[in-house]
């Protein structure tokens, strides 16, 4: 069954440390997305990708990097984690067509202390 899998499910990180969130999709979708979800803000787009080797800045990219080494994998990297990056992070995949709905992963809950 086609799916989007995120790892880890939960992560505790130290301020100033490096954090990598991973996402793998078996949907063969071209596009992948990273969102963070915070109460009162809904889903906010951090980075996205149109295919292997491509990354684009979303609406709130500061403090985050992304990497898309293959069609299936899309990582979100926090080089210097800060407590303000404590959040729930969702990865999603979608076809290139605008009418394509997204398939979301189950989320990664990140706590930066």
């Amino acid at each position, binding site marked *: 069954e086609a799916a989007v899998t995120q790892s880890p499910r939960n992560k505790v990180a130290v301020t100033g440390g490096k954090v990598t969130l991973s996402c793998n999709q078996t949907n063969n979708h071209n596009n992948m997305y990273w969102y963070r979800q915070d109460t*009162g*803000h809904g*889903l906010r787009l951090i980075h996205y990708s149109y295919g292997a080797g491509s990354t684009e800045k979303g609406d709130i990219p500061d403090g985050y990097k992304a990497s898309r080494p293959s069609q299936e994998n899309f990582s979100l990297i926090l080089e210097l984690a800060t407590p303000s990056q404590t959040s729930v992070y969702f990865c999603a995949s*979608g076809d290139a067509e*605008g009418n394509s*709905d997204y398939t979301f992963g*189950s989320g990664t809950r990140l706590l930066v202390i």
Partner: protein
Amino acid sequence: GDSVTQTEGLVTLTEGLPVMLNCTYQTAYSTFLFWYVQHLNEAPKLLLKSSTDNKRTEHQGFHATLHKSSSSFHLQKSSAQLSDSALYYCALAPSSFSKLVFGQGTSLSVVP
């Protein structure tokens, strides 16, 4: 720019009463509109979508009609159930090859 507005942050309903969650949007393009539902500690999932003006779209007891004249895509259900308690997102695809634009979400709480 393209935007989606969900005016209610939190809606609390008694079981059995009708549900209506508001969604309006702004875009210069022909569009697809979506509703996603997210239950507690789960991923958002597609509930329904539409691009056809004035056509009712239904799924899992919910329905919505895209009205391009008023730029609206309200989500409705005739009778709320406890299991409908969730976070609901309205989203817009402004055009082909555009990424989705999400509203801020409406949290629906159905109480006995």
